[in-house]
């Protein structure tokens, strides 16, 4: 046989469909596939495509991303405007302001003075109230004083937070679930962080939270 079947005719053969009036018969397509290497290779490619399509429904859920989510992602990562911290968070989170400091000193959030080991802070943003109790455990290792900071927080207000995150300047993130009473807790080495609280109706950020020793 001299005539090579088209992709459409091969697909009809593979799917068990008629090629319609004037099309090559299934027997002729089969013969071409068996006898002609090029046609056989094309049939293999089309069979592979049908195999991929057969798995498409299962894979599709993995690829499903709502358009607004992708638009926000594109906006957050525009070339030339990318920083080193979580930009999506910056875009979506309102910023909480300090309203209370147990030391009643400057509102700068850095440092544990002298031998003091704890400090209470309150922050507020629209619909959010955040109470933090920060406790420092000092340790002397090889002559260097270092510390572990425990942050126990409670979030309240009209928003309901379900996740709390500490985010390091280079972008590393440590997460904690917020319980039904609004409590969350972290235990970390001293350093500089951003605290992010996320809920279904929004999120709030406490940027530049420096937990260091004087």
């Amino acid at each position, binding site marked *: 046989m001299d005539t090579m079947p088209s992709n459409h005719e091969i*697909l009809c053969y593979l799917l068990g469909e008629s090629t319609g009036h004037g099309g090559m018969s299934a027997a002729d397509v089969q013969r071409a596939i068996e006898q002609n290497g090029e046609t056989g290779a094309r049939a*293999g*490619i089309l069979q592979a495509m049908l195999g991929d*399509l057969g*798995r498409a429904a299962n*894979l599709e859920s993995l690829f499903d991303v709502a358009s607004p989510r992708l638009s926000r992602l594109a906006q*957050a990562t525009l*070339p030339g405007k990318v920083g080193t911290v979580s930009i999506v968070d910056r875009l979506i989170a309102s910023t909480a302001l300090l309203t209370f400091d147990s030391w009643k000193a400057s509102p700068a959030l850095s440092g544990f003075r002298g031998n003091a080991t704890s400090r209470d802070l309150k922050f507020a943003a629209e619909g959010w109230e955040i109470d933090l109790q920060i406790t420092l455990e000092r340790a002397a290792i090889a002559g260097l004083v270092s510390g572990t900071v425990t942050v126990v927080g409670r979030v309240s207000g009209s928003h309901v937070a379900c996740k709390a995150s500490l985010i390091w300047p280079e972008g590393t993130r440590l997460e904690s679930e917020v319980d039904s009473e609004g409590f969350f807790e972290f235990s970390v080495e001293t350093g500089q962080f951003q605290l992010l609280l996320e809920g279904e109706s929004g999120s709030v950020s406490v940027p530049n939270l420096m937990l260091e020793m004087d």
Partner: protein
Amino acid sequence: MSAEDSQLLSQCLAGDEQAWYRLVGLHGGLVFAVARRAGVPEHACDDIAQRVFASLSRSLGKIRNEQTLPAWLITTTKRQAWRWVKTQRSAGATLGTGAEAIGNEHFDVEDLERHAQLRRALSALEDKCRELLQLLYFVARTDYEQVSRTLGMPIGSIGPTRARCLAKLAHLMENSELKIGRDTKRKERK
């Protein structure tokens, strides 16, 4: 590198913001798919995707011609996902979150890449073909009766139309340097 990806990368390098939105729209699904398949929970996938595209935006001029953009995105997403999993592991003892999904990591990235290619080829089809193939292959358990009702097509014409639309899909994939041929060889080796 497909011609469209190459052009989009050039436009992004030239500061075309719309090209960046198009690029993220085209490949965002693949990045989320790799992260999800790696066991990253949904709430953390945005963060992973952001890191991947932030990295891409800084590397626009460095992606080699012989490397496809989907392959670069898959590799970068896998690294970010693994890093995320590692961080969760180290924090899991005290925080108790995320660790349960870590042991299930298993994904065939070629499956994901080929699916991404199918989706792209499908999006370039005319409306009638795209709707038909989406219903038949991309939505689970859609039979001819449902397709007939949804698209207003006689049941008898669905089969022949499907074959014609699949031929157009194959043509699009051949012309966009997609990898169905390589896939055949991979399957033959198994």
